[in-house]
């Protein structure tokens, strides 16, 4: 018998009932994260059937998607402008109280994007199963957890039973050798991976990112990688826990303490794919050859090295449609294209290291005239930490708008949007048509590239400013 993958090990540990040809597995969920947008219908189902939340102790709620990011709206008593969003916020407050769930409310210092706050609390831990009604739940796989997004019906299932019905996915090894060069980030790496395997290349699989380049990444960089697994079609991405993982978790508020910590680490050390484990698919990538990446089209797989030209489409209808939306042409060079908006934030790149990277570029420089730079921390804790080391001052001095935490301009449902026809360099995860606002044109890139482009007012290779 061949060895087992990291995924196999975590899956098996959570099988309440194994799958059969007729029925999926019943999988136990260790941690259920929830937010205001995908939970109302699930709470309504509980109320309709008079069911309680089975494990409030394994459930954590926050407000992030539809919430405003302007300080005066979060703290100053200025109401949320969007009535419907205000209703959602109010409804989660009511539901959390009624069902006994811990909620980080609007003014709570622990509030933030759901995928940023759980790791920073130490609630996300290796070997866990973690779900949330949000596709970027894959982020938590950076800790060696099996973490994936679910729909609202499944949110209801987890509320009611702490379990999900699941078919076992296949496994896909993403082997990344070498080391990232200076100025090339985890964001560039995951964009390159998606460019290679395609936006549906991971469908039906759980990805495991492995190899020297992955081991060398910090936890925050690993979260950026796993976050975008879904953009390759994979519900989950995982990275085996190691010393970097344990060092990150040690001392966090919800990480195990004392003897329990030692026991936990001993168990976590076993969560690696066996040397003879077999994967259903694999790809090999050399990190040392990569450059900063930027998307040119309307899905994250339409991506090129920043110095490259947009590929010629030769009449391919999908590419033509994407380029028409972007008002780009095959053969156009990306460098030097003018931009209107820069967004630095999101569950992909809204953590402290991302803000430090942006500050490295922005320190002593100014945002180009006519360009709006919006910097939104992933959580209130990130904001506090950034302000404590003077990043907020650097951002404001550069002319950036430095906000409170939330999903913000990543998905244009909270008042932060990009105007029709405008070009936005964004550190978020999706460049879909209209994702950041009706008619908005999104260029996905790293915090370095985003900050450098804000300063120059055009798409810029950040290595010139580092």
């Amino acid at each position, binding site marked *: 018998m061949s060895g087992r993958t990291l995924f196999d090990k975590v899956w098996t540990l959570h099988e309440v009932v194994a799958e059969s040809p007729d029925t999926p597995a019943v999988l136990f969920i260790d941690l259920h994260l929830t937010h205001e*947008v*995908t939970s109302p*219908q699930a709470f309504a189902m509980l109320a309709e059937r008079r069911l309680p939340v089975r494990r409030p102790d394994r459930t954590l709620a926050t407000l992030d*998607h539809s919430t405003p990011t302007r300080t005066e709206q979060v703290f100053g008593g200025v109401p949320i402008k969007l009535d419907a969003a205000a209703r959602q916020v109010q409804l989660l407050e009511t539901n959390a109280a009624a069902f006994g769930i811990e909620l980080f409310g609007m003014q709570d210092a622990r509030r933030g994007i759901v995928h940023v706050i759980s790791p920073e609390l130490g609630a996300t831990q290796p070997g866990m199963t973690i779900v949330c009604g*949000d*596709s970027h739940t894959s982020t938590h796989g950076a800790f060696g957890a099996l973490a994936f997004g679910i*729909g609202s019906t499944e949110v209801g299932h987890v509320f009611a*039973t702490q379990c999900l*019905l699941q078919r076992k996915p296949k496994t896909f090894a993403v082997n990344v050798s070498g080391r990232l060069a200076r100025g090339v980030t985890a964001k560039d790496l995951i964009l390159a991976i998606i460019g290679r395997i395609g936006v549906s290349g991971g469908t039906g699989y759980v990805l495991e990112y492995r190899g020297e380049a992955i081991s060398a990444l910090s936890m925050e960089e690993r979260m950026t990688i796993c976050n975008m697994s879904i953009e390759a079609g994979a519900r989950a991405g995982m990275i085996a826990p190691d010393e970097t993982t344990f060092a990150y978790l040690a001392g966090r508020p919800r990480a195990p303490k004392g003897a329990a910590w030692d026991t936990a680490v001993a168990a976590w050390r076993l969560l690696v794919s066996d040397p003879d484990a077999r994967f259903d698919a694999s790809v090999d990538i050399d990190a040392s050859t990569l450059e900063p990446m930027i998307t040119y089209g309307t899905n994250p797989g339409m991506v090129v090295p920043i110095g490259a030209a947009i590929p010629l489409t030769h009449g391919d209808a999908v590419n033509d449609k994407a380029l028409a939306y972007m008002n780009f042409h095959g053969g156009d060079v990306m460098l030097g294209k003018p931009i209107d908006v820069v967004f630095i934030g999101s569950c992909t790149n809204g953590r402290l290291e991302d803000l430090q990277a942006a500050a490295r570029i922005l320190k002593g420089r100014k945002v180009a005239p006519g360009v709006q730079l919006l910097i939104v921390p992933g959580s209130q804790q990130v904001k506090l930490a950034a302000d404590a080391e003077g990043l907020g001052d650097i951002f404001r001095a550069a002319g950036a708008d430095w906000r409170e935490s939330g999903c913000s301009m990543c998905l244009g449902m909270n008042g932060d949007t990009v105007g029709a026809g405008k070009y936005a360099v964004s550190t978020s995860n*999706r460049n879909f048509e209209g994702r950041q606002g009706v008619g908005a044109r999104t260029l996905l890139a790293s915090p370095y590239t985003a900050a450098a482009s804000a300063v120059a007012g055009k798409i810029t290779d950040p290595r010139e400013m580092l």
Partner: protein
Amino acid sequence: MEPIRQLRSTTVVMAATNIDTDQIIPARFLTVTTKLGLGKSLFADWRYGADGAPNPAFVLNQPAAAGSRILVAGNNFGCGSSREHAPWALLDYGFRAVVSTAIADIFAGNSLKNGLLPIVVDASTHTWLVANPAAEVRIDLEAQRLTLPNGVATSFPIEAFARHCLMNGLDELGYLESKRAEIEAYERARPA
């Protein structure tokens, strides 16, 4: 949920690949707190102009689309976010099945839980369907067979338990709740 065994309808064809959930239902329509009424916002940014008037070039605004319950879409339909609002919007509009060569995982799972059939067919069947919009197609869930108007039939895969639930109008929570004893035993045996 209403049982579904057979479906017979003309098709609407949207051949573009990678139609994502932000196109199916843009995020600004997610501030709802129920599942109802999303059909009017289905494909909103393609379906309506900036002034809110229907875009006559968009397939759903053309007379042949009226009453169709089967959407034929390009590869990797439903990619992107986990919003169940996507199948809710398609169902509220009137669709009961999406046919493609590949359907994104989370979207497919959400669809099965709401009675929207995610049907993956081979490339040649798909090519025929794309080339013949508004064809009358039969879908037999029990036999897992899709039949074209020319009589050519193709089988499609569908997860066995979801199929059982769809055919009998059951929801999956009832089954999960029936495993209460096993869940309790698991919780007791589990190291803290």
